[in-house]
């Protein structure tokens, strides 16, 4: 009689612990899905969608094209960034420094990005048949070109910086010269003083 009870308790205990484990495991899975997305807000996409919804006045075709191109550019930047991250991440996971749940999060974000790019291609085709094929290529070129344009802003700030630094350098040079001139003037006077003191 007693051993039957023991068996029941044993099995019941197992079932209970399985259910408890399952409960916590499900909660962890949900936590990953609610976790932070890989990138922050997709501003360019939000701007495009907001522009589409404008009614008074409506956005012009050109404005929408521009907004779609910016959206595609942001997607290109994200794809490149994720490619780098993938390398780094797989190395870290191999080393064991980070857990597998980050990989799961990453894979999810990859799928999201794929869907986003598909959406962009579809939108592009609504403007002109076939634009979907080339829009990403154009966007890649534009991303590189934008980097070149950053140089323009840099030039002005650097000129100010360097002018300040050069002014300091020139100032110090003058001070050193004055110091040296003073020193050599002093040493010239010394022998005469020694004779006078003697």
């Amino acid at each position, binding site marked *: 009689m007693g051993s039957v009870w023991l068996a029941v308790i044993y099995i019941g205990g197992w079932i209970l612990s399985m259910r408890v484990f399952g409960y916590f495991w499900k909660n962890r899975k949900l936590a990953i899905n609610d976790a932070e997305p890989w990138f922050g*807000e997709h501003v360019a996409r939000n701007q495009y969608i907001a*522009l589409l919804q404008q009614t008074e006045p409506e956005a012009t*075709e050109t404005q929408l094209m*521009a907004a779609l191109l910016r959206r595609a550019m942001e997607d290109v930047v994200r794809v490149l960034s994720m490619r780098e991250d993938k390398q780094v991440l797989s190395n870290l996971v191999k080393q064991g420094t980070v857990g597998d749940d980050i990989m799961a999060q990453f894979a999810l974000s990859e799928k999201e990005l794929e869907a986003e790019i598909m959406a962009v291609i579809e939108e592009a085709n609504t403007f002109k048949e076939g634009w979907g094929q080339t829009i990403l290529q154009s966007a890649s070129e534009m991303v590189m070109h934008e980097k070149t344009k950053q140089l*323009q802003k840099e*030039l002005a700030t650097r000129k100010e910086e360097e002018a300040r630094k050069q002014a300091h350098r020139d100032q110090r040079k003058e001070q050193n010269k004055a110091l040296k001139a003073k020193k050599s003037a002093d040493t010239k006077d010394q022998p005469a003083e020694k004779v006078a003191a003697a």
Partner: protein
Amino acid sequence: MSTVDLQIYNDKVVCGKHKKEVCSECNQSFIEINDLTRHLKSTNGQVPPPGAVLPLRSQQIAKMREDGNTHFRAQRHQEAIAAYTNAINIAFDRPLWEPSQLAREELAVLLCNRSAAYIARKEWVDAYVDAQGVIELKRPWSKGHFRLGKALIGMGRIAEAIEALNLGLMFDPEATEIQKALKEAETGLEAEEDE
């Protein structure tokens, strides 16, 4: 997914609350869309095909560069700088979809020429920054390092000048102007040490 509060005002996209193109309060910037829209007008609303370049702009830039070169050869360095600056501003305003490699080549030459004009006027800081730009756009070009070296000599940074000139020599061992500049730098260094 949050919605963006924008409106269209005077044909420009601006923020909904303050009607600004770049609004720090709304933390929004629509200037990229507006600039791109402006550039798209030149294609008559057509989708820009990859690699398309508007010949008019290239011609304008080339003409300004030639003007600058003419001024430079005639020792009118101030006018040369003005012409080069014009060309540079237009070159920086190319539409984003034009090939970036083209823009980089163009800008490298323009900045290099402007740097030479600044060096002729002994405006070392401007020459220095322009030369830095050339190197960032086209590192294996020995001329960029040459200009950087000359500017550094002018600023009294002789050790850095020698480094820059040697780097230029590495890319083009035959460059006689760099070799001359190196000698100039080395005599400058000795003069400093004698002081």
